[in-house]
């Protein structure tokens, strides 16, 4: 499955939200790797992701993810198989 579009759009959101144009997201990137990624901005991030990809996270998923790789996989799953083909 090609998730490159998701990576791209997520990178734009993060660069915007954390005000750092240098941010490069990797599978293993997590909150502690990014300055300003705290519990409050995490919620803002999840809200922005929901809006951007038109999906809805479950309560457990809002804080239960270990890294960006898991977030991207979850977005891809929620969007369904058609969304990642583009």
């Amino acid at each position, binding site marked *: 499955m090609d998730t490159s579009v998701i990576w791209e759009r997520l990178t734009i959101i993060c660069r*915007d939200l954390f005000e750092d144009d240098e941010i490069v997201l990797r599978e293993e990137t997590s909150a502690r790797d990014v300055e300003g990624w705290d519990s*409050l901005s995490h*919620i*803002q991030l999840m809200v*922005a992701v929901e809006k951007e990809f038109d999906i809805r996270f479950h309560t457990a998923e*809002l804080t239960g993810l270990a890294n960006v790789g898991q977030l991207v996989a979850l977005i891809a799953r929620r969007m369904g198989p058609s969304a990642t083909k583009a």
Partner: protein
Amino acid sequence: MSPQRTDLTAEAEKQDWPDLYRQAREATEYAQLLSILRKRKRLLKAGQRWEFSRSVRLAMLGGATTELLEEPLELCLESRGVCCQLHRSDYNTFAQEMLDPSSATARFRPEVAVVVSTPFNIPTWPQAGDSLLRVREQAHEVCSYWLGLCAKLHDHTGCEILLNNFHPLPVRPLGNLGAKTPWDANNFLRRVNRELGDQAPPYVHLNDVEYLSAQHGVSQWFDPRFWFHAKQPVSFACLLPYVHNTACIIGGLVGRTAKCLVVDLDNTLWGGVVGDDGPEGIVIGEGDPIGEAFKAFQEYLLQLKQRGVLLAVCSKNDDANARTPFDQRPEMVLRLKDFVAFHANWRTKPENLREIAAQLNIGTDALVFVDDNPVERDQVRQSLPEVQVIELTEDPADYVRLLDHAGLFEIASFTNEDADRTRQYHENQLREKSSAAVTDYPAYLATLRQQAVVRPFEPAFLDRITQLINKSNQFNLTTLRMTRSQVEERMQSPASLTAYVRLVDRFGDNGLISVFCGRKEGEELWIDEWLMSCRVLQRGVEQLLCNYVVDKASLMGIATLRGVYIPTAKNRMVQDHYRGLGFTWVHEEPDGTAHWRLDVADYRPFSVQIHLVEEY
């Protein structure tokens, strides 16, 4: 980088703030808000500051998390010309903070407190099977609990308090039966909300979350996921509407309320172009969906007028043509008498808006502009950024909602002056016409048959006095704003000398039009407030009030009046106020603040063409 270049950059950045604040006023989505906030942070980091006409000390209290509301609220207030100093109390500590006179919130001495409460903060709920009588008592208890907390905080700090009423719960365990069952949770909340509305004292301002949640849909308003995670009182989808509403109320409290709505005519009040289609060809009224949409808009404008908003016309039209629909089309809801200014000509809208403001003696920042033509809107935005321009869609059925939800006419109380405002402006125009015909001004004043009541502040007029203190910009010596509670304190203080003036003449009642407030220090009386509505300039009211004040001051053992003039961008007209009343100039501070004094013993009362009465 050369010095000139730095200047140019600074000049460009000066433009950034008005742009930023316009974007903030027009933002509709949380994501937009976040991006504007980031831009604001960058400007602040770059050392850019904007000057505000008003600042306010604001305490946030929550039975929910308030942290994510704060920056958006600051931004919304700034976009209305109000900067704030904000104090946050810890999550869910609102009760202690409000009860304890030495709490951090009380010590902060807020002017305004925002209490962010949700249905989760209701202490007791009815039990299944409770009788109507019992549920009524419980609703009363819940209401007393909240208003009791507010009373305590108000006692300790004198602040104005914004209190949420409650949004309905998104679910119904009793189904439709709940609607007729007293102990049903939603039925109970409705009762509590009604009780809050009935019982709230003047210093409590309800943040009508019940309405907002209905407007946006209660399932949309409350997102349980974010409540469970972070105790967010409102979903992110509805955070902006909540913050916007809160800022509108606070704006109203500090006098940032618009006064006059200026509307275009063709395709704004009716469908079509009267100059081309003729009065019989324009679309207005029943029988045509577009005609009904315009009629609904006119009905809404009429409701605004009835609550004290002035209406004015600004249209690119031939004057005679522009008036014909009002005379010849019975379907028109609005009549010419509903407008206080009618500008139909071929000059630019910004020019006309300036003239309308001058004619009504108000600032251009008190104008709201509604025009279907995006080019006109843009021109007004460019040349008069302080005018609130409503961004319309091309569908007249949207007009009412877009204007209403802008929340520009928020007021803390409704007074007799609000109900009568349009009539008072019309009477004023008659007076002016009548004065234009005379050459002997004192003789003209005599023909007005003026009568005035001058009395110390009284509870019945506190709302209007507070309104005038917070609205007057031009005839205002100090522009010292006060909340209703502060005005009440002055009314009760034995060291105060307060006065209001009501004025009536042969054309009608001008209402309460002047306010004075002084504070005794030893044998001196310091004048903190002296202001007047510009509708009654040069009628002798200042002299009448001065006579009254000197008279009362001497009874209080005061030897000297101390007057202060604090210059602002708007109050130049009163820079010689004290000279005109016989005060002596003392000195001037570097910021232009001028000090004046008057020895009571030397005062000779002015003769005025106003008959002083106990009541008219």
